[in-house]
Each structure stands twice: as structure tokens, then as C-alpha cells.
């Protein structure tokens, strides 16, 4: 039997982080002077630690994950059996949903790459090489990494926020990807040299087109090709495109 009158439930609540700050402080003070309660806390901590492996005791099979993933992602993927590892499958299914229409493989090739990059970036836990909302940080970061330069508009005070950027490969070339937030949406801007003329076959001449539920706008200017892609509404995509065109005239 414990001689100390300290409520054991309060000790547990303390370990759970369930005590108010002042209660926690006075309990801590008590613990320093009471070996009995200190031993009790030590035992409870050890029990909790022994319980942690319970978090990973049962792991779902890759097959089951694919099954559920297939059910919740767009219906159009249903017929496909992907033999990728589970993590890659997650990505592949999303990309597949985006690039389904393939009457013209060549035409969609360019778009697919862009969408692929966008989706993989959205799915990544670590999406940026450089995290900054400041265009004066992001632009110089690309120096020496890409064989061209481009300008960024001032986002402060606009509906857009610069979230970060990363170096990507698009059409077999180093390209810049910027991620711009608009409300809850994230929009990717891809900039790459257009020396191969791959824009020729693109299905979108001007303005925003809808490609499998993504809105995308693309244009070529002074040898650079720009893509703006995301799930934000068409007007938003277009305004971002205009802002970029404004500073890269």
C-alpha cells in the first residue's frame, strides 16, 4: 500500500500530458521529494515504452493496401493491376488517373511529365529543395543549377504565396519547379528550355485547359516554356499565369 496520498491517476494524467501547466508543475515538485511516486512514475513510463511496439505489430499486406487504394481512387484505375511496391503504387495510381486519355501518346507525353511531376510533388513528404516564400531567395537558389534564368512576380499582397521550389527534370532537361499556394490549393509552375520545340504538339494553345481534372496553362516565351498546373479553379490558374507572363515578357 502506498503511504503517499498522491493520486495515482494524476500521475498517469501527467504522463499523458493531460494536466494543466500549474498542476503539472506542482506534481513535478512533489516528484522530486517523493521517492515512492518517482518509482511509480518510472514504472508507468516503462510500461508505456513497452507498449510502443504495439503500434507496428500488425502491418497490412501490400496487396490489401492496393485493393483499398484502388477502391478510393478514381474509378478509371480499377482494371489495372500494379505490381509496384506499395509506396510506388500509391503514386502510380494517381498519375494514371491524371493521364488516362491517350489517343495521342506523343501529344500527351509532355503533359504527362508535367502532371507526373506535380502529383509526385504533392504526394511527397518532403516536397521542396528550397523552402522560402521570398522570391529573392528562391531565384538565386537556381543559379548554376539550371541553364537559364526567369523572373518571379512579387506575391506579397496577392492571393498567392510562394511555398518553395525544387530542381526537377522535365523533357530530359533540368527545370525549375515552383510550388505556389492559393488558398488550400497548391499549384506547380514548371519552367524549362523549349529548344526541342516539344510545345508544338501540345493540346493547349492558349488559356487554361482542363486535363483530367487538373487545370493547366502553358506558353512559350523567349525560348522558355512555362507550365502552370494544379487543382485550383481555372480563374486562379490563369491569374497566376498572367502574373508570370507579366514579369517574363
Amino acid at each position, binding site marked *: *500500500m*502506498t503511504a503517499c496520498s498522491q493520486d*495515482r*491517476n494524476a500521475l*498517469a*494524467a501527467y504522463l*499523458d*500530458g*493531460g494536466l494543466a501547466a500549474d498542476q503539472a508543475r506542482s506534481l513535478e515538485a512533489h516528484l522530486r521529494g517523493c521517492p515512492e511516486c518517482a*518509482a*511509480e512514475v*518510472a*514504472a*508507468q513510463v*516503462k*510500461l*508505456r*515504452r*513497452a*507498449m*510502443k*511496439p*504495439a*503500434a*507496428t*505489430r*500488425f*502491418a*497490412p499486406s501490400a496487396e*490489401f*493496401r492496393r*485493393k*483499398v*487504394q484502388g*477502391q*478510393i*481512387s*478514381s474509378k478509371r484505375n480499377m482494371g489495372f493491376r500494379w505490381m509496384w511496391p506499395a509506396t510506388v503504387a*500509391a503514386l502510380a495510381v*494517381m498519375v494514371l*488517373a491524371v493521364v488516362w486519355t491517350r489517343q495521342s501518346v506523343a501529344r500527351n507525353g509532355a503533359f504527362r511529365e508535367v502532371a507526373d511531376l506535380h502529383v509526385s510533388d*504533392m*504526394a511527397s513528404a518532403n516536397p521542396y529543395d528550397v523552402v522560402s516564400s521570398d522570391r529573392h531567395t528562391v531565384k538565386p537558389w537556381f543559379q548554376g543549377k539550371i541553364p537559364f534564368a526567369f523572373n518571379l512576380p512579387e506575391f506579397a499582397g496577392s492571393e498567392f504565396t510562394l511555398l518553395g521550389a525544387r530542381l526537377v527534370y522535365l523533357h530530359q532537361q533540368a527545370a525549375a519547379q515552383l510550388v505556389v499556394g492559393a488558398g*488550400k490549393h497548391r499549384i506547380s509552375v514548371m519552367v524549362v528550355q523549349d529548344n526541342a520545340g516539344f510545345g508544338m504538339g501540345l493540346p493547349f494553345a492558349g488559356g487554361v485547359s482542363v486535363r483530367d*481534372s487538373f487545370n493547366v496553362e502553358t506558353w512559350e516565351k523567349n525560348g522558355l516554356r512555362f507550365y502552370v498546373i494544379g*487543382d485550383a479553379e481555372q480563374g486562379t490558374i490563369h491569374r497566376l499565369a498572367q502574373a508570370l507572363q507579366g514579369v517574363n515578357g
Partner: protein
Amino acid sequence: MDRLFFEQLAMPLFDQLYNHACWLTGDRADAEDLVQETYAKALKGFGSFAEGTNLRAWMFRILRNAFLNSRSGLKQKTSYLEDEETGADEAVTHDVTPEALLLATESQEMVFSALEKLPVAHREIILLCDVDEMSYREIAEVLDVPPGTVMSRLARARRNLRAALGAKEAVR
């Protein structure tokens, strides 16, 4: 687009939900049914899910309701009723000293098997708190009970687990 958004938010919870379902049901096939049902229901109800609220608690709650309505869950429902009635064993479990508890936790298997043998209402709340590391508020959301109930049930569950570990220790 909603589907993609849902997928991005909900799939990272997959392992956690599956593990929890296994602990609840004690059976992998039952757990798979539960998880599948949970994702189907969550996708359907995603439109009504308010952005900014806790998706994890919301999905755990759907999983739990699915479990309670499943065959294996119905059998266990009595454990929730019993939970409120017991408490008389308090004096006994206080005999389990910190030293005895320390010894008992030496064995991973012992801790797991004690956890497995707890009534589901107690196993569930201990898992949510210690394993999934949810706050009292989050647990209250999952269990759909007031936070005060979370604290009292958790206290009973811990006593119960401790008694189970202490008893094992005594036998050994």
C-alpha cells in the same frame, strides 16, 4: 478532385488504422473488412467532413462504429457496459507495486498478451492513448464521449492492465 484530396489525406493513416483494427478484432481478415469499410464510408462522407477538423479522429471513429456493428464487435459490446460497473477491484490492483510492474514489463510478450486479454473497451482506450498517442480531446472525439469519461475509463483500463501484469508476475 475530392477523391485525390481524400486519398492524399487518408492513405497515410492506413497502417495505423489497420494495426488498430487488428488489435480490436484479433483477426486479420476481420480487420481488413473493417479498414475497407472505413475507407469506403469515409470517402462517401468526405463531402461533409469539415476541413480543419481532425481527420484522424474522424476516421478512427468511423472504424470504431464499423467495429461495434460488426459481428465480432457485437460480441464485445458487453465489455462497454461492464466497464462502467466495475471499479471495485481498485484496492486489489494497488497491491501491484511499481517494482512488480517494472519486472512484468521486461517481457514484450507479457505486455502484449495482457493487453490482448483486456476487455475491448479498455484495450481500445489504452491503444488510442499510449500507442496512437492521441490527446484526451482526440480520444473523446473517437469514442464520442465527454473528456471526463475518457479520463475515468482510461484510469480503469490502466488499473485493469496493471492487475493483469501483476497477476502474471505473481504466477511466475
